[in-house]
């Protein structure tokens, strides 16, 4: 069974908000004692996804919570927007593919950096990306 505690939500409307999301994810990752490398991976993934929420989604929220399951702890971060959605998720997850002027490494990179990764998106309705990183 997975239990969740300490849910916190932050808005993502500006570049400074993206920095605040990173800081919150870092603090929570330290709290559950993720290793330094795993903290860095999770915060980097969060930075990519928060930027996508801002740049591609227009604006949105980040929700961060602490999970426990079978004696392990984890951090879940959910990035949600009501932007244009992603028409072709496979394409969006292809390293190097971008619809804009980015490097196209954010979504594919974030997936590699975390333990669990899910995208829920619909054209015209928005996008929600959920990631989890567990302690070892």
């Amino acid at each position, binding site marked *: 069974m997975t239990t969740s505690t300490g849910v916190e939500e932050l808005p993502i409307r500006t*570049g400074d908000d*993206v*920095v605040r999301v990173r800081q919150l994810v870092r603090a929570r990752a330290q709290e559950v004692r993720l290793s330094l*490398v795993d903290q860095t*991976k999770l915060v*980097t993934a969060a930075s*990519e996804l928060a*930027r996508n929420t801002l740049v591609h989604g227009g604006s949105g929220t980040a929700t961060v919570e602490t999970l426990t399951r079978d004696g392990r702890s984890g951090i879940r971060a959910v990035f949600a927007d009501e932007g244009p959605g992603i028409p072709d998720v496979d394409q969006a997850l292809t390293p190097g593919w971008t619809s804009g002027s980015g*490097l196209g490494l954010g979504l594919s*990179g974030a997936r590699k950096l975390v333990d669990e990764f899910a995208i829920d998106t619909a054209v015209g309705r928005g996008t929600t990306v959920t990631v989890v990183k567990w302690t070892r």
Partner: protein
Amino acid sequence: MERVPVLSLGDALLVSIQVDLQDNTVLALQEDLAERIVSTGARGVLIDISAVDIVDSFIGRMFASIAALSRLLDAETVVVGMRPAVAITLVELGLSLDGVRTALDVERGMKILRALSDRRGLPVADELDDDLVPVAEGGGPAAGA
């Protein structure tokens, strides 16, 4: 928005990133550096990222852009002090940073800049060789002749 200060050290520019980098700060730093390379005639740029705890694709691209633009402006860039966890994450993210020169710390970075500059016969920072007349300074050979 916070700005990252750019310091002049001899004919090198020194950037030590001590703030949480948001995207506009990153873009501003790129522009500031381009202007400062031209206005100071700097031959080397040293970027110290030992205090930077994450490098994502946007920040990583800045290093590659600065390296490329400094080369166009006849200067070399060295990025120093990358944390091991940051390096591991960058590789997994898929960012290779081709074309970006790196060194473990400031001292080694300065050594690289000096070596590059010696090869071109021009001094960097305080490593002025007595035998060399700095061509861009003082209006020519009058002083020595």
